[in-house]
Protein backbone atom coordinates (compact mmCIF):
# COMPACT_ATOMS: atom_id res chain seq x y z
CA UNK A 1 0.00 0.00 0.00
CA UNK A 2 2.77 2.36 0.90
CA UNK A 3 4.57 1.75 -2.35
CA UNK A 4 1.37 2.52 -4.21
CA UNK A 5 0.91 5.79 -2.33
CA UNK A 6 4.43 6.95 -3.03
CA UNK A 7 4.14 6.07 -6.70
CA UNK A 8 0.91 8.03 -7.01
CA UNK A 9 2.32 11.07 -5.28
CA UNK A 10 5.36 11.13 -7.52
CA UNK A 11 3.27 10.80 -10.67
CA UNK A 12 1.05 13.60 -9.45
CA UNK A 13 4.02 15.82 -8.81
CA UNK A 14 5.46 15.06 -12.22
CA UNK A 15 2.15 15.95 -13.84
CA UNK A 16 2.04 19.28 -12.11
CA UNK A 17 5.55 20.13 -13.16
CA UNK A 18 4.92 19.17 -16.77
CA UNK A 19 1.61 21.02 -16.91
CA UNK A 20 3.39 24.00 -15.58
CA UNK A 21 6.23 23.87 -18.05
CA UNK A 22 3.86 23.47 -20.98
CA UNK A 23 1.80 26.34 -19.74
CA UNK A 24 4.79 28.56 -19.22
CA UNK A 25 6.15 27.84 -22.66
CA UNK A 26 2.87 28.48 -24.42
CA UNK A 27 2.21 31.73 -22.67
CA UNK A 28 5.64 33.09 -23.24
CA UNK A 29 6.07 31.94 -26.78
CA UNK A 30 2.75 33.22 -27.98
CA UNK A 31 2.27 36.42 -29.90
CA UNK A 32 1.06 39.40 -27.93
CA UNK A 33 2.17 40.36 -24.49
CA UNK A 34 0.92 42.27 -21.46
CA UNK A 35 3.12 45.21 -22.15
CA UNK A 36 1.05 46.07 -25.16
CA UNK A 37 -2.10 46.01 -23.05
CA UNK A 38 -0.51 48.18 -20.42
CA UNK A 39 0.71 50.68 -22.89
CA UNK A 40 -2.55 50.90 -24.64
CA UNK A 41 -3.15 50.05 -28.27
CA UNK A 42 -1.89 53.26 -29.80
CA UNK A 43 1.50 54.07 -28.50
CA UNK A 44 4.56 51.94 -28.96
CA UNK A 45 7.20 54.05 -27.33
CA UNK A 46 10.39 51.96 -27.22
CA UNK A 47 11.69 53.71 -24.14
CA UNK A 48 8.49 53.04 -22.24
CA UNK A 49 8.46 49.45 -23.41
CA UNK A 50 12.03 48.88 -22.30
CA UNK A 51 11.29 50.36 -18.91
CA UNK A 52 8.17 48.24 -18.44
CA UNK A 53 9.95 45.08 -19.55
CA UNK A 54 12.69 45.78 -17.11
CA UNK A 55 10.18 46.31 -14.35
CA UNK A 56 8.43 43.02 -14.90
CA UNK A 57 11.52 41.04 -15.69
CA UNK A 58 10.24 40.23 -19.15
CA UNK A 59 13.49 40.97 -20.85
CA UNK A 60 15.38 38.16 -19.20
CA UNK A 61 15.88 34.85 -20.99
CA UNK A 62 13.02 32.37 -20.65
CA UNK A 63 14.64 29.80 -18.42
CA UNK A 64 15.65 32.44 -15.92
CA UNK A 65 12.10 33.72 -15.84
CA UNK A 66 10.90 30.16 -15.29
CA UNK A 67 13.12 29.38 -12.35
CA UNK A 68 12.65 32.71 -10.65
CA UNK A 69 8.90 32.16 -10.89
CA UNK A 70 9.21 28.70 -9.41
CA UNK A 71 11.29 29.99 -6.58
CA UNK A 72 8.82 32.63 -5.55
CA UNK A 73 5.84 30.38 -6.13
CA UNK A 74 7.20 27.87 -3.63
CA UNK A 75 7.06 30.60 -1.05
CA UNK A 76 3.41 31.25 -1.85
CA UNK A 77 4.12 34.38 -3.80
CA UNK A 78 2.54 34.02 -7.19
CA UNK A 79 3.69 37.35 -8.48
CA UNK A 80 1.92 40.57 -9.17
CA UNK A 81 -0.79 40.92 -11.75
CA UNK A 82 0.54 43.07 -14.51
CA UNK A 83 -2.85 44.47 -15.32
CA UNK A 84 -4.33 45.04 -11.90
CA UNK A 85 -1.12 45.60 -10.02
CA UNK A 86 -2.20 43.37 -7.16
CA UNK A 87 -0.67 40.21 -5.84
CA UNK A 88 -1.99 37.30 -7.85
CA UNK A 89 -2.31 35.17 -4.77
CA UNK A 90 -4.67 37.71 -3.23
CA UNK A 91 -6.82 37.91 -6.35
CA UNK A 92 -7.11 34.17 -6.52
CA UNK A 93 -7.84 33.84 -2.82
CA UNK A 94 -10.70 36.27 -3.22
CA UNK A 95 -12.39 34.38 -6.00
CA UNK A 96 -11.52 30.82 -5.16
CA UNK A 97 -14.15 30.18 -2.46
CA UNK A 98 -16.98 31.04 -4.86
CA UNK A 99 -15.68 28.54 -7.39
CA UNK A 100 -15.06 25.85 -4.80
CA UNK A 101 -18.62 26.32 -3.61
CA UNK A 102 -19.97 25.59 -7.08
CA UNK A 103 -17.57 22.76 -7.85
CA UNK A 104 -18.00 20.80 -4.64
CA UNK A 105 -21.75 21.24 -4.39
CA UNK A 106 -22.27 20.23 -8.01
CA UNK A 107 -19.81 17.37 -7.74
CA UNK A 108 -21.44 15.82 -4.70
CA UNK A 109 -25.02 16.39 -5.83
CA UNK A 110 -24.45 14.92 -9.28
CA UNK A 111 -22.71 11.93 -7.72
CA UNK A 112 -25.65 11.18 -5.47
CA UNK A 113 -28.42 11.84 -7.96
CA UNK A 114 -26.72 10.24 -10.97
CA UNK A 115 -25.64 7.14 -9.08
CA UNK A 116 -29.06 6.70 -7.48
CA UNK A 117 -30.71 6.96 -10.89
CA UNK A 118 -28.28 4.41 -12.29
CA UNK A 119 -28.91 1.93 -9.48
CA UNK A 120 -32.69 2.24 -9.86
CA UNK A 121 -32.46 1.80 -13.64
CA UNK A 122 -30.29 -1.28 -13.19
CA UNK A 123 -32.65 -2.92 -10.73
CA UNK A 124 -35.64 -2.14 -12.90
CA UNK A 125 -33.94 -2.85 -16.18
CA UNK A 126 -36.21 -2.86 -19.17
CA UNK A 127 -39.07 -1.11 -17.43
CA UNK A 128 -40.44 2.30 -18.21
CA UNK A 129 -38.31 3.92 -15.52
CA UNK A 130 -35.18 2.52 -17.11
CA UNK A 131 -36.14 3.80 -20.56
CA UNK A 132 -37.11 7.17 -19.15
CA UNK A 133 -33.90 7.65 -17.20
CA UNK A 134 -31.74 6.41 -20.04
CA UNK A 135 -33.37 8.74 -22.54
CA UNK A 136 -33.07 11.65 -20.15
CA UNK A 137 -29.41 10.89 -19.60
CA UNK A 138 -28.72 10.60 -23.31
CA UNK A 139 -30.20 14.01 -24.10
CA UNK A 140 -28.47 15.70 -21.16
CA UNK A 141 -25.20 14.26 -22.33
CA UNK A 142 -25.54 16.02 -25.66
CA UNK A 143 -26.16 19.48 -24.28
CA UNK A 144 -23.56 22.22 -24.19
CA UNK A 145 -23.39 23.25 -20.54
CA UNK A 146 -23.54 26.98 -21.21
CA UNK A 147 -26.55 26.61 -23.47
CA UNK A 148 -28.38 24.64 -20.82
CA UNK A 149 -27.59 27.40 -18.38
CA UNK A 150 -29.02 29.98 -20.74
CA UNK A 151 -32.17 27.93 -21.27
CA UNK A 152 -32.64 27.55 -17.54
CA UNK A 153 -32.28 31.29 -17.14
CA UNK A 154 -34.95 31.83 -19.76
CA UNK A 155 -37.32 29.42 -18.07
CA UNK A 156 -36.78 30.23 -14.44
CA UNK A 157 -35.75 33.86 -14.47
CA UNK A 158 -37.38 35.43 -17.45
CA UNK A 159 -40.57 33.48 -17.83
CA UNK A 160 -41.28 32.25 -14.33
CA UNK A 161 -39.32 34.93 -12.54
CA UNK A 162 -38.64 32.88 -9.46
CA UNK A 163 -34.84 32.73 -9.50
CA UNK A 164 -32.18 35.40 -9.94
CA UNK A 165 -30.33 35.61 -13.22
CA UNK A 166 -26.83 36.36 -12.20
CA UNK A 167 -24.30 36.93 -9.50
CA UNK A 168 -23.74 35.21 -6.23
CA UNK A 169 -25.66 37.62 -4.08
CA UNK A 170 -28.18 40.34 -4.48
CA UNK A 171 -25.90 43.34 -4.81
CA UNK A 172 -28.48 45.84 -3.77
CA UNK A 173 -29.38 44.32 -0.46
CA UNK A 174 -26.69 43.63 2.09
CA UNK A 175 -27.74 40.57 3.99
CA UNK A 176 -25.88 39.10 6.91
CA UNK A 177 -26.00 35.81 8.71
CA UNK A 178 -28.81 33.43 7.76
CA UNK A 179 -30.36 35.82 5.26
CA UNK A 180 -27.00 35.97 3.49
CA UNK A 181 -26.73 32.21 3.36
CA UNK A 182 -30.23 31.90 1.95
CA UNK A 183 -29.52 34.55 -0.64
CA UNK A 184 -26.41 32.74 -1.80
CA UNK A 185 -28.32 29.48 -1.97
CA UNK A 186 -31.00 31.12 -4.05
CA UNK A 187 -28.36 32.33 -6.48
CA UNK A 188 -26.68 28.95 -6.51
CA UNK A 189 -29.69 26.99 -7.64
CA UNK A 190 -29.41 27.67 -11.37
CA UNK A 191 -25.64 27.39 -11.81
CA UNK A 192 -25.42 24.30 -9.62
CA UNK A 193 -28.52 22.90 -11.31
CA UNK A 194 -26.91 23.32 -14.71
CA UNK A 195 -23.67 21.67 -13.67
CA UNK A 196 -25.46 18.81 -11.95
CA UNK A 197 -27.62 18.09 -14.99
CA UNK A 198 -24.55 18.05 -17.21
CA UNK A 199 -22.66 15.67 -14.93
CA UNK A 200 -25.49 13.25 -14.17
CA UNK A 201 -25.15 11.16 -17.38
CA UNK A 202 -21.58 10.16 -16.51
CA UNK A 203 -22.61 8.80 -13.10
CA UNK A 204 -25.80 7.27 -14.42
CA UNK A 205 -24.06 5.25 -17.12
CA UNK A 206 -21.34 3.91 -14.93
CA UNK A 207 -23.60 3.11 -11.99
CA UNK A 208 -26.13 1.31 -14.14
CA UNK A 209 -23.63 -0.79 -16.05
CA UNK A 210 -21.65 -1.55 -12.93
CA UNK A 211 -24.68 -2.74 -10.95
CA UNK A 212 -25.82 -4.87 -13.87
CA UNK A 213 -22.42 -6.41 -14.28
CA UNK A 214 -21.94 -7.17 -10.60
CA UNK A 215 -25.42 -8.65 -10.28
CA UNK A 216 -24.49 -11.20 -12.92
CA UNK A 217 -21.28 -12.23 -11.20
CA UNK A 218 -20.81 -15.75 -9.87
CA UNK A 219 -20.42 -14.74 -6.27
CA UNK A 220 -23.86 -13.16 -6.24
CA UNK A 221 -25.31 -16.44 -7.46
CA UNK A 222 -23.46 -18.24 -4.68
CA UNK A 223 -24.84 -15.86 -2.08
CA UNK A 224 -28.35 -16.34 -3.41
CA UNK A 225 -27.89 -20.09 -3.12
CA UNK A 226 -27.16 -19.63 0.58
CA UNK A 227 -30.59 -18.20 1.20
CA UNK A 228 -29.29 -14.75 2.07
CA UNK A 229 -31.94 -12.04 1.84
CA UNK A 230 -31.97 -10.03 -1.39
CA UNK A 231 -31.77 -6.89 0.65
CA UNK A 232 -28.58 -7.91 2.36
CA UNK A 233 -27.06 -9.17 -0.85
CA UNK A 234 -27.78 -5.88 -2.51
CA UNK A 235 -26.82 -3.51 0.27
CA UNK A 236 -23.62 -5.20 1.29
CA UNK A 237 -22.31 -7.18 -1.63
CA UNK A 238 -23.66 -5.72 -4.84
CA UNK A 239 -23.32 -2.14 -3.69
CA UNK A 240 -19.79 -2.46 -2.36
CA UNK A 241 -18.57 -4.07 -5.53
CA UNK A 242 -20.48 -1.88 -7.95
CA UNK A 243 -19.50 1.41 -6.36
CA UNK A 244 -15.84 1.11 -7.30
CA UNK A 245 -15.98 2.63 -10.79
CA UNK A 246 -18.07 5.48 -9.44
CA UNK A 247 -15.15 6.55 -7.29
CA UNK A 248 -12.96 6.89 -10.35
CA UNK A 249 -15.68 8.81 -12.14
CA UNK A 250 -15.91 11.22 -9.22
CA UNK A 251 -12.31 12.16 -9.81
CA UNK A 252 -12.87 12.69 -13.50
CA UNK A 253 -16.02 14.65 -12.79
CA UNK A 254 -14.28 16.99 -10.37
CA UNK A 255 -11.45 17.51 -12.83
CA UNK A 256 -13.99 18.39 -15.51
CA UNK A 257 -15.82 20.72 -13.15
CA UNK A 258 -12.66 22.55 -12.13
CA UNK A 259 -12.01 23.46 -15.73
CA UNK A 260 -15.55 23.61 -17.11
CA UNK A 261 -16.93 25.79 -14.36
CA UNK A 262 -15.58 28.86 -16.14
CA UNK A 263 -18.25 28.56 -18.83
CA UNK A 264 -20.98 28.48 -16.22
CA UNK A 265 -19.41 31.32 -14.29
CA UNK A 266 -19.55 33.34 -17.48
CA UNK A 267 -23.20 32.56 -18.09
CA UNK A 268 -24.27 33.39 -14.57
CA UNK A 269 -21.75 36.15 -13.88
CA UNK A 270 -20.58 34.14 -10.89
CA UNK A 271 -17.60 35.84 -9.19
CA UNK A 272 -15.16 32.94 -9.29
CA UNK A 273 -11.73 32.08 -10.63
CA UNK A 274 -13.18 30.83 -13.90
CA UNK A 275 -14.07 34.31 -15.02
CA UNK A 276 -10.75 35.60 -13.76
CA UNK A 277 -8.94 33.25 -16.09
CA UNK A 278 -10.89 34.43 -19.09
CA UNK A 279 -10.17 38.07 -18.53
CA UNK A 280 -6.54 37.25 -17.84
CA UNK A 281 -6.31 35.39 -21.13
CA UNK A 282 -7.73 38.27 -23.05
CA UNK A 283 -5.44 40.77 -21.41
CA UNK A 284 -2.38 38.54 -21.56
CA UNK A 285 -1.95 38.95 -17.81
CA UNK A 286 0.81 36.33 -17.52
CA UNK A 287 1.26 36.18 -13.77
CA UNK A 288 -2.45 35.78 -13.12
CA UNK A 289 -2.72 33.14 -15.82
CA UNK A 290 0.23 31.21 -14.48
CA UNK A 291 -1.06 31.46 -10.96
CA UNK A 292 -4.52 30.17 -11.76
CA UNK A 293 -3.23 27.45 -14.01
CA UNK A 294 -0.90 26.32 -11.29
CA UNK A 295 -3.68 26.22 -8.73
CA UNK A 296 -5.89 24.31 -11.16
CA UNK A 297 -3.24 21.75 -12.04
CA UNK A 298 -2.45 21.20 -8.40
CA UNK A 299 -6.13 20.80 -7.53
CA UNK A 300 -6.72 18.29 -10.27
CA UNK A 301 -3.61 16.32 -9.37
CA UNK A 302 -4.62 16.31 -5.70
CA UNK A 303 -8.15 15.20 -6.54
CA UNK A 304 -6.84 12.37 -8.70
CA UNK A 305 -4.44 11.20 -6.03
CA UNK A 306 -7.10 11.25 -3.33
CA UNK A 307 -9.52 9.38 -5.57
CA UNK A 308 -6.92 6.73 -6.36
CA UNK A 309 -6.16 6.29 -2.68
CA UNK A 310 -9.83 5.98 -1.78
CA UNK A 311 -10.19 3.42 -4.55
CA UNK A 312 -7.29 1.43 -3.19
CA UNK A 313 -8.90 1.45 0.23
CA UNK A 314 -12.15 0.14 -1.20
CA UNK A 315 -10.65 -2.45 -3.52
CA UNK A 316 -8.11 -4.73 -1.89
CA UNK A 317 -7.00 -6.12 -5.24
CA UNK A 318 -5.40 -2.85 -6.25
CA UNK A 319 -2.94 -2.60 -3.44
CA UNK A 320 -0.55 -5.15 -4.82
Amino acid at each position, binding site marked *: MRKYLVKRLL*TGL*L*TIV*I*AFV*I*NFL*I*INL*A*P*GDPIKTLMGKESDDPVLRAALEEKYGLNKPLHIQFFSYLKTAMRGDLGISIIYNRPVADMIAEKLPATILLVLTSGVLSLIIGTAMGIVAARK*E*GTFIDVLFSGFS*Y*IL*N*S*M*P*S*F*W*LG*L*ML*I*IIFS*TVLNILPTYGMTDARASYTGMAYVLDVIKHMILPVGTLVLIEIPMYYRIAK*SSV*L*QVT*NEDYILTLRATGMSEKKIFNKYIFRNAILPTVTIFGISL*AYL*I*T*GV*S*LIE*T*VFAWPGTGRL*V*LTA*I*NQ*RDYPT*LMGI*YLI*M*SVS*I*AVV*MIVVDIVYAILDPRIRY
Partner: protein
Amino acid sequence: MIRTIVNDKQLLFGILGLIFLLLVAVLAPVIAPEDPYYYGPDVLNKLGENGHLLGTNKMGQDIFSMIIHGTRTSLKVAVISAFISGILGMLIGGVAGYFGGQVDRAISEFINIFMMLPTFFLILLIIALFGNSIYNVMVVIGITTWPSNAKLMRAQALSLRERTFVKAATAMGESRLQILFKYIIPNGVFPVIANTTVGMSNAILTEAGLSFLGLGDPNIISWGQMIYDGKAYLTSAWWIATFAGIAIVITVTIFYLLGDGLNHVMNPKRSKGKGV
Protein backbone atom coordinates in the same frame (compact mmCIF):
# COMPACT_ATOMS: atom_id res chain seq x y z
CA MET B 1 -24.54 -6.07 -43.10
CA ILE B 2 -27.74 -4.19 -43.80
CA ARG B 3 -29.47 -6.59 -41.41
CA THR B 4 -27.06 -5.82 -38.58
CA ILE B 5 -27.66 -2.15 -39.08
CA VAL B 6 -31.41 -2.43 -39.11
CA ASN B 7 -31.52 -4.68 -36.05
CA ASP B 8 -29.60 -2.36 -33.80
CA LYS B 9 -31.79 0.65 -33.22
CA GLN B 10 -29.00 2.92 -32.13
CA LEU B 11 -26.79 2.15 -35.07
CA LEU B 12 -29.75 2.57 -37.37
CA PHE B 13 -30.71 5.97 -36.08
CA GLY B 14 -27.10 6.98 -35.89
CA ILE B 15 -26.46 6.21 -39.52
CA LEU B 16 -29.74 7.73 -40.65
CA GLY B 17 -28.95 10.80 -38.61
CA LEU B 18 -25.49 11.03 -40.10
CA ILE B 19 -26.88 10.82 -43.61
CA PHE B 20 -29.37 13.52 -42.69
CA LEU B 21 -26.60 15.79 -41.41
CA LEU B 22 -24.46 15.20 -44.46
CA LEU B 23 -27.35 16.01 -46.75
CA VAL B 24 -28.10 19.22 -44.89
CA ALA B 25 -24.46 20.25 -44.97
CA VAL B 26 -23.96 19.50 -48.65
CA LEU B 27 -27.28 20.95 -49.78
CA ALA B 28 -27.10 23.95 -47.47
CA PRO B 29 -27.20 26.64 -50.17
CA VAL B 30 -30.25 24.91 -51.64
CA ILE B 31 -32.18 24.33 -48.42
CA ALA B 32 -31.51 27.60 -46.67
CA PRO B 33 -34.06 30.25 -47.65
CA GLU B 34 -31.51 33.04 -47.44
CA ASP B 35 -27.81 33.66 -47.63
CA PRO B 36 -26.78 33.49 -43.98
CA TYR B 37 -24.33 36.31 -44.43
CA TYR B 38 -26.99 38.62 -45.82
CA TYR B 39 -27.44 41.47 -43.39
CA GLY B 40 -31.02 42.18 -44.21
CA PRO B 41 -33.43 44.88 -43.15
CA ASP B 42 -35.50 42.59 -40.90
CA VAL B 43 -33.83 43.05 -37.57
CA LEU B 44 -34.68 41.00 -34.50
CA ASN B 45 -37.72 39.44 -36.04
CA LYS B 46 -39.73 36.97 -34.04
CA LEU B 47 -40.51 33.43 -35.16
CA GLY B 48 -42.28 33.42 -38.46
CA GLU B 49 -42.20 37.20 -38.84
CA ASN B 50 -41.60 38.31 -42.41
CA GLY B 51 -41.16 34.75 -43.54
CA HIS B 52 -38.23 34.07 -41.21
CA LEU B 53 -39.01 30.64 -39.84
CA LEU B 54 -36.88 31.01 -36.77
CA GLY B 55 -36.60 34.76 -36.66
CA THR B 56 -33.58 36.99 -37.24
CA ASN B 57 -30.80 38.47 -35.19
CA LYS B 58 -29.57 42.00 -34.71
CA MET B 59 -27.75 42.06 -38.01
CA GLY B 60 -30.80 40.91 -39.90
CA GLN B 61 -29.45 37.43 -40.57
CA ASP B 62 -32.04 34.68 -40.91
CA ILE B 63 -31.60 32.25 -38.03
CA PHE B 64 -32.88 29.23 -39.89
CA SER B 65 -30.41 29.75 -42.72
CA MET B 66 -27.61 30.26 -40.26
CA ILE B 67 -28.40 27.00 -38.54
CA ILE B 68 -28.42 25.13 -41.84
CA HIS B 69 -25.05 26.53 -42.81
CA GLY B 70 -23.72 25.99 -39.32
CA THR B 71 -24.02 22.29 -40.00
CA ARG B 72 -21.08 22.54 -42.36
CA THR B 73 -18.89 24.12 -39.75
CA SER B 74 -19.79 21.61 -37.09
CA LEU B 75 -19.22 18.64 -39.34
CA LYS B 76 -15.91 20.04 -40.55
CA VAL B 77 -14.73 20.62 -37.00
CA ALA B 78 -15.90 17.21 -35.90
CA VAL B 79 -14.32 15.30 -38.72
CA ILE B 80 -11.00 17.10 -38.92
CA SER B 81 -10.31 17.20 -35.18
CA ALA B 82 -11.37 13.61 -34.77
CA PHE B 83 -9.21 12.64 -37.73
CA ILE B 84 -6.12 14.31 -36.29
CA SER B 85 -6.86 12.90 -32.85
CA GLY B 86 -7.43 9.45 -34.31
CA ILE B 87 -4.23 9.37 -36.37
CA LEU B 88 -2.14 10.55 -33.45
CA GLY B 89 -3.81 8.11 -31.08
CA MET B 90 -3.41 5.18 -33.46
CA LEU B 91 0.24 5.82 -34.08
CA ILE B 92 1.24 6.50 -30.51
CA GLY B 93 -0.92 3.74 -29.04
CA GLY B 94 0.10 1.27 -31.72
CA VAL B 95 3.80 1.87 -31.14
CA ALA B 96 3.39 1.58 -27.39
CA GLY B 97 1.36 -1.62 -27.51
CA TYR B 98 3.31 -3.38 -30.22
CA PHE B 99 6.85 -2.45 -29.29
CA GLY B 100 6.25 -3.01 -25.61
CA GLY B 101 8.93 -2.91 -22.95
CA GLN B 102 10.57 0.37 -22.11
CA VAL B 103 8.97 2.13 -25.04
CA ASP B 104 5.54 1.13 -23.82
CA ARG B 105 6.24 2.16 -20.24
CA ALA B 106 7.51 5.57 -21.27
CA ILE B 107 4.66 6.23 -23.67
CA SER B 108 2.06 5.02 -21.16
CA GLU B 109 3.33 7.39 -18.53
CA PHE B 110 3.24 10.13 -21.13
CA ILE B 111 -0.37 9.26 -21.98
CA ASN B 112 -1.38 9.23 -18.31
CA ILE B 113 0.20 12.58 -17.64
CA PHE B 114 -1.34 14.08 -20.73
CA MET B 115 -4.74 12.84 -19.65
CA MET B 116 -4.38 14.61 -16.33
CA LEU B 117 -3.67 17.97 -17.90
CA PRO B 118 -6.56 20.41 -17.83
CA THR B 119 -7.04 20.28 -21.57
CA PHE B 120 -9.87 22.71 -21.87
CA PHE B 121 -7.72 25.47 -20.52
CA LEU B 122 -4.83 24.41 -22.66
CA ILE B 123 -7.09 24.80 -25.66
CA LEU B 124 -8.33 28.14 -24.42
CA LEU B 125 -4.79 29.36 -23.96
CA ILE B 126 -3.59 28.24 -27.33
CA ILE B 127 -6.54 29.74 -29.13
CA ALA B 128 -6.36 32.97 -27.22
CA LEU B 129 -2.70 33.34 -27.83
CA PHE B 130 -2.26 31.96 -31.30
CA GLY B 131 -5.35 33.22 -32.95
CA ASN B 132 -8.86 31.95 -33.26
CA SER B 133 -9.18 30.87 -36.84
CA ILE B 134 -11.35 27.83 -37.28
CA TYR B 135 -8.37 25.83 -38.46
CA ASN B 136 -6.45 26.56 -35.30
CA VAL B 137 -9.44 25.34 -33.37
CA MET B 138 -9.60 22.06 -35.25
CA VAL B 139 -5.91 21.36 -34.95
CA VAL B 140 -5.77 22.20 -31.27
CA ILE B 141 -8.71 19.97 -30.40
CA GLY B 142 -7.07 17.21 -32.39
CA ILE B 143 -3.74 17.42 -30.64
CA THR B 144 -5.25 17.53 -27.17
CA THR B 145 -7.72 14.67 -27.42
CA TRP B 146 -5.64 11.81 -28.77
CA PRO B 147 -4.93 10.04 -25.41
CA SER B 148 -8.20 8.09 -25.28
CA ASN B 149 -7.63 6.79 -28.81
CA ALA B 150 -4.06 5.93 -27.92
CA LYS B 151 -5.16 3.88 -24.90
CA LEU B 152 -7.63 1.91 -27.00
CA MET B 153 -5.14 1.28 -29.78
CA ARG B 154 -2.51 0.24 -27.30
CA ALA B 155 -4.80 -2.34 -25.71
CA GLN B 156 -5.58 -3.71 -29.15
CA ALA B 157 -1.93 -3.80 -30.13
CA LEU B 158 -1.00 -5.63 -26.94
CA SER B 159 -3.42 -8.43 -27.67
CA LEU B 160 -2.81 -8.52 -31.43
CA ARG B 161 0.89 -8.88 -30.77
CA GLU B 162 0.30 -12.39 -29.47
CA ARG B 163 -1.77 -13.54 -32.41
CA THR B 164 -0.38 -16.22 -34.62
CA PHE B 165 -0.44 -14.30 -37.86
CA VAL B 166 1.63 -11.53 -36.34
CA LYS B 167 4.13 -13.96 -34.93
CA ALA B 168 4.26 -15.65 -38.30
CA ALA B 169 5.02 -12.37 -40.00
CA THR B 170 7.85 -11.72 -37.57
CA ALA B 171 9.24 -15.16 -38.18
CA MET B 172 9.10 -14.51 -41.90
CA GLY B 173 11.39 -11.57 -41.43
CA GLU B 174 9.06 -8.63 -41.83
CA SER B 175 10.35 -5.53 -40.13
CA ARG B 176 8.62 -4.21 -37.03
CA LEU B 177 7.46 -1.07 -38.78
CA GLN B 178 6.01 -3.10 -41.62
CA ILE B 179 4.08 -5.29 -39.21
CA LEU B 180 2.85 -2.25 -37.34
CA PHE B 181 1.38 -0.65 -40.42
CA LYS B 182 0.28 -3.73 -42.30
CA TYR B 183 -1.27 -5.81 -39.54
CA ILE B 184 -1.49 -4.20 -36.13
CA ILE B 185 -3.03 -0.89 -37.03
CA PRO B 186 -5.54 -2.07 -39.62
CA ASN B 187 -6.78 -4.84 -37.32
CA GLY B 188 -6.93 -2.84 -34.15
CA VAL B 189 -8.48 0.27 -35.54
CA PHE B 190 -12.13 -0.59 -35.05
CA PRO B 191 -12.62 0.45 -31.41
CA VAL B 192 -10.70 3.60 -32.21
CA ILE B 193 -13.23 4.39 -34.90
CA ALA B 194 -16.09 3.92 -32.45
CA ASN B 195 -14.32 6.10 -29.91
CA THR B 196 -13.75 8.71 -32.59
CA THR B 197 -17.47 9.36 -32.76
CA VAL B 198 -17.32 10.37 -29.12
CA GLY B 199 -14.37 12.54 -30.06
CA MET B 200 -16.46 14.17 -32.75
CA SER B 201 -19.22 14.95 -30.29
CA ASN B 202 -16.70 16.44 -27.90
CA ALA B 203 -15.11 18.46 -30.67
CA ILE B 204 -18.44 20.04 -31.55
CA LEU B 205 -19.12 20.83 -27.89
CA THR B 206 -15.63 22.23 -27.39
CA GLU B 207 -15.84 24.44 -30.46
CA ALA B 208 -19.18 25.69 -29.23
CA GLY B 209 -17.66 26.41 -25.84
CA LEU B 210 -14.78 28.31 -27.37
CA SER B 211 -17.10 30.38 -29.51
CA PHE B 212 -19.28 31.07 -26.53
CA LEU B 213 -16.31 32.53 -24.70
CA GLY B 214 -15.66 34.82 -27.61
CA LEU B 215 -12.68 32.78 -28.74
CA GLY B 216 -14.31 31.37 -31.82
CA ASP B 217 -13.81 32.38 -35.40
CA PRO B 218 -16.16 35.32 -36.02
CA ASN B 219 -15.95 34.95 -39.78
CA ILE B 220 -17.52 31.54 -39.78
CA ILE B 221 -21.13 30.74 -39.09
CA SER B 222 -21.12 28.36 -36.17
CA TRP B 223 -23.76 27.31 -33.70
CA GLY B 224 -21.54 28.19 -30.77
CA GLN B 225 -21.05 31.63 -32.20
CA MET B 226 -24.81 32.03 -32.47
CA ILE B 227 -25.28 31.20 -28.82
CA TYR B 228 -22.58 33.74 -27.99
CA ASP B 229 -24.45 36.37 -29.98
CA GLY B 230 -27.71 35.33 -28.46
CA LYS B 231 -26.58 35.71 -24.88
CA ALA B 232 -26.98 39.47 -24.93
CA TYR B 233 -30.51 39.13 -26.28
CA LEU B 234 -31.58 36.37 -23.98
CA THR B 235 -34.57 38.17 -22.59
CA SER B 236 -35.58 40.05 -25.72
CA ALA B 237 -34.81 37.66 -28.56
CA TRP B 238 -34.52 34.21 -27.03
CA TRP B 239 -34.67 32.44 -30.38
CA ILE B 240 -31.17 33.45 -31.39
CA ALA B 241 -29.50 31.27 -28.79
CA THR B 242 -32.11 28.57 -28.34
CA PHE B 243 -32.29 26.93 -31.75
CA ALA B 244 -28.56 26.88 -32.26
CA GLY B 245 -28.31 24.93 -29.03
CA ILE B 246 -31.02 22.52 -30.13
CA ALA B 247 -29.09 21.94 -33.35
CA ILE B 248 -26.03 21.06 -31.27
CA VAL B 249 -28.01 18.68 -29.08
CA ILE B 250 -29.43 16.87 -32.11
CA THR B 251 -26.08 16.60 -33.85
CA VAL B 252 -24.21 15.39 -30.76
CA THR B 253 -26.94 12.87 -30.02
CA ILE B 254 -26.60 11.49 -33.54
CA PHE B 255 -22.87 10.99 -33.06
CA TYR B 256 -23.41 9.29 -29.71
CA LEU B 257 -25.99 6.95 -31.24
CA LEU B 258 -23.52 6.15 -33.97
CA GLY B 259 -20.78 5.43 -31.44
CA ASP B 260 -23.02 3.26 -29.26
CA GLY B 261 -24.26 1.39 -32.31
CA LEU B 262 -20.72 0.72 -33.52
CA ASN B 263 -19.78 -0.51 -30.07
CA HIS B 264 -22.72 -2.91 -30.04
CA VAL B 265 -21.72 -4.31 -33.39
CA MET B 266 -18.21 -4.92 -32.12
CA ASN B 267 -19.23 -6.45 -28.81
CA PRO B 268 -22.34 -8.50 -29.41
CA LYS B 269 -22.27 -9.77 -25.82
CA ARG B 270 -25.40 -8.55 -24.16
CA SER B 271 -25.45 -8.09 -20.45
CA LYS B 272 -29.17 -8.61 -20.27
CA GLY B 273 -30.53 -11.98 -19.28
CA LYS B 274 -28.85 -14.61 -17.17
CA GLY B 275 -28.64 -17.86 -19.03
CA VAL B 276 -26.87 -21.01 -18.05
